[in-house]
């Protein structure tokens, strides 16, 4: 490869990485909220699928992408409400409920899709890259950073907004306290279950949005099990990111890079590695991340534990 080709390759890689990271960014920022409040939602995968399906269904009915995204968020939150009810009100084990919701999300979306959509085979119009005058036309940099659709750009906004809410508002302060010392929050006169519900709903709303991006900003179709493990990778991202939204943004980008790399390397005829190995790259990186960063250091100390007043 000469230099020009390498530069083009890198620009395309970065552009694709951000696009592929987008669902991870949304889902992991959401999960940061949930886990900071002490709720470990391993049902992200199922929630993202519900978001993807709801987004697809709403957009195919109305042809309106913002409405589709909204439907994705709403679908995710509705799913989150079920999770919150069982884990916070009933105080069932978070892992068990999360696993159940993953199965429910996969089965339910596959069922509804097959029942109502699969025979139509109809795709939807997805969000198109916005052309930013001058910036989009820059050599290499344009390809890498300025030829994305609005949903991809909004990940920056989401990361900044999430950080402000978590660290600069009374809500965020209380939320962080709930995951560390819920009783102190209780004594200070705030409702621990209320905050946990809010955190789960924020988290699943984001996961739904991440799922909806898959159908509305990436592929133009719903495919059964199309999240292909992104919900679980988002859980690993949160650990690697040390429970910070900005961290989640950059770690997701790193994982996006692995996704993009495996896609582009598959297309390179000169590489003789079996494509299955390349496909496994993001998942291998997830395992490595979890092993290397498994230390409990920054984890909310009450993560995964139901709260009992007495």
């Amino acid at each position: 490869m000469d230099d020009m080709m390498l530069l083009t390759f890198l620009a395309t890689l970065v552009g694709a990485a951000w696009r592929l990271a987008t669902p991870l960014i949304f889902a992991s920022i959401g999960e940061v909220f949930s886990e900071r409040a002490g709720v470990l939602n391993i049902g992200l995968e199922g929630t993202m699928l519900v978001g993807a399906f709801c987004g697809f269904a709403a957009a195919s009915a109305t042809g309106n992408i913002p409405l589709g995204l909204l439907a994705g968020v709403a679908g995710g939150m509705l799913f989150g409400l079920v999770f919150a009810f069982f884990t916070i009100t009933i105080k069932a084990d978070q892992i068990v409920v999360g696993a159940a919701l993953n199965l429910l999300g996969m089965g339910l979306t596959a069922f509804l899709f097959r029942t109502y959509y699969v025979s139509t085979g109809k795709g939807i119009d997805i969000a198109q890259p916005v052309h930013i005058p001058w910036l989009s036309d820059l050599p290499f940099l344009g390809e890498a950073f300025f030829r994305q659709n609005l949903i991809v750009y909004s990940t920056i906004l989401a990361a900044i907004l999430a950080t402000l809410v978590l660290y600069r508002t009374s809500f965020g302060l209380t939320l962080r306290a709930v995951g560390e010392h819920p009783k102190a929050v209780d004594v200070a006169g705030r409702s621990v279950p209320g905050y946990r519900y809010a955190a789960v709903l924020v988290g699943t709303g984001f996961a739904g949005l991440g799922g909806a991006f898959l159908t509305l900003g990436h592929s133009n179709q719903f495919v059964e099990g199309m999240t292909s493990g992104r919900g679980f990778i988002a859980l690993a991202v949160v650990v690697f990111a040390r429970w910070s939204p900005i961290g989640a943004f950059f770690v997701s980008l790193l994982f996006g890079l692995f996704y993009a790399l495996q896609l582009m390397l598959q297309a390179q005829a000169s590489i003789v590695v079996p494509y299955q190995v390349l496909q496994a790259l993001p998942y291998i990186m997830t395992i490595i991340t979890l092993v290397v960063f498994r230390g409990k250091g920054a984890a909310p100390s009450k993560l995964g534990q139901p709260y009992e007043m007495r």
Partner: protein
Amino acid sequence: MSTRPFLRIDNIRKRFGPIVASDGVSLEIEEGEIHSLLGENGAGKSVLMSMICGMVRPDEGDIVYKGQPVSFASPRDAIRQRIGMVHQHFMLVPNLTVAENYILGQGSALSVISDMDKVHRKIRALSERYALDVRPDAIVEDLSVGEQQRVEILKVLFHGIDLLILDEPTAVLTPQETDRLLCLMSDLVKDGKTVVFISHKLDEVMRVSNRISVMRDGRVVHTVKVGETNARELARMMVGRDVRMELPRNPEPPGPIVLSVENLACRAENGIPAVRGVSFDVRAGEIVGIAGVSGNGQTELSLALSGLLPVDTGRVVLNGKEITGLDPAAINARSFSHIPEDRHKHGIVLPLSLSENTILQRYDQKPFATGGMLNGRVIAEHTRDLIKRFRVKSRDENQPIAALSGGNQQKLVVARELARNPDFILVNQLTRGIDIGAMEFVMEEMLKQRDSGRAILLISTELEELFAICDRILVMFHGGILGELPPDRTRLDELGLLMAGNKEQPAPAG
């Protein structure tokens, strides 16, 4: 003093399932007094105060505060009425700053945090006024326990209170810190506030209170003015019978060295060095105490000695044979008994029966097992014998040990460990969480063991316990042993300074 009491509690009842926590409590607190609530663990002191500060709602009865009947739905209601409580387990979020902890739950949930400077200024002003050294931008988890308590007290003052409730505040403090706290209580009263002081330490209560109420079995059994009573009478009211305050001593010279520790170092579970080169001997027929504020390596020392934590450097020699680095089962088998600090974690298995718990270390040995089968009858007889000899209050030997009170669980642990006829007994927190009656009993048992020639190492944060039964006291600070003292109460100041890490001799008094 006004005729109308500041706070009147009238015939309060509260049950948690089958447990009666408050059985018709009545109590009157006068404005501007320090009123101590004295009682054993489980007497109902903390529950009563939790009801006054809105954490728990009473089933029956009235609370009249400043002449008005009150009923708090949450602690916030109580704070609005200027009632604040400093809990035994701090209500501070460890990863937040002091100032963030203070504004937690204040203002609207949706508000943006602004003007932290103003909060910081207010904290500094209060901190100067009450001479409580508190930095508003410190992260709580970086502070020592004593500092955290100051933060907790100032938090209540920050919220603005007339009535301050302190729940067992001195349990975590050095003697000097305790002195400062008792002074602070007097200052607060001069400032027009009323203080309720919950404690089970008679001497502190006698020093600081105006009036003392003694609780037993969920009731206030007596309220007295401090000048009209003495420690012995208070102890009798707490326990319901006479308590021997001084245990008889038998000053025999100790025998040969049983346990020898040379330059022992080990790290805590998080990898931070916790014990830094400790050396000492324990001889047959003596009780060696280790004093210190909790968190100075005592936990790790006892875990390392009993084989539960890997040793980095140094040697442990028991009866002339090195036991360094052996696993706990091997150490147990060499005449080494361990009464652990955290009995739920290292001492007993809660869901198992008393019988099963008494043979935890010996389930595979004769006579408890033959050919891999347990001998139920032998185990039951052995357990019944221990229950009888150590007066463990229980239904029978098949009851799960979780159903017993903390004191009775501890008695069974002590019974089990002594029944193994050890040469050396490692005890960490002999009397933690147990009542005075059981305390007296286990302490007497330890003295009997010493008199029969056993070597005992007693690690404790309760100075009274150390003074009562030890032959000499080592002081641990920051993973090392800073000094040794005889068990002489008149040298409490010296002990306190060593516990605070101060190696210099104190200036002569007066």
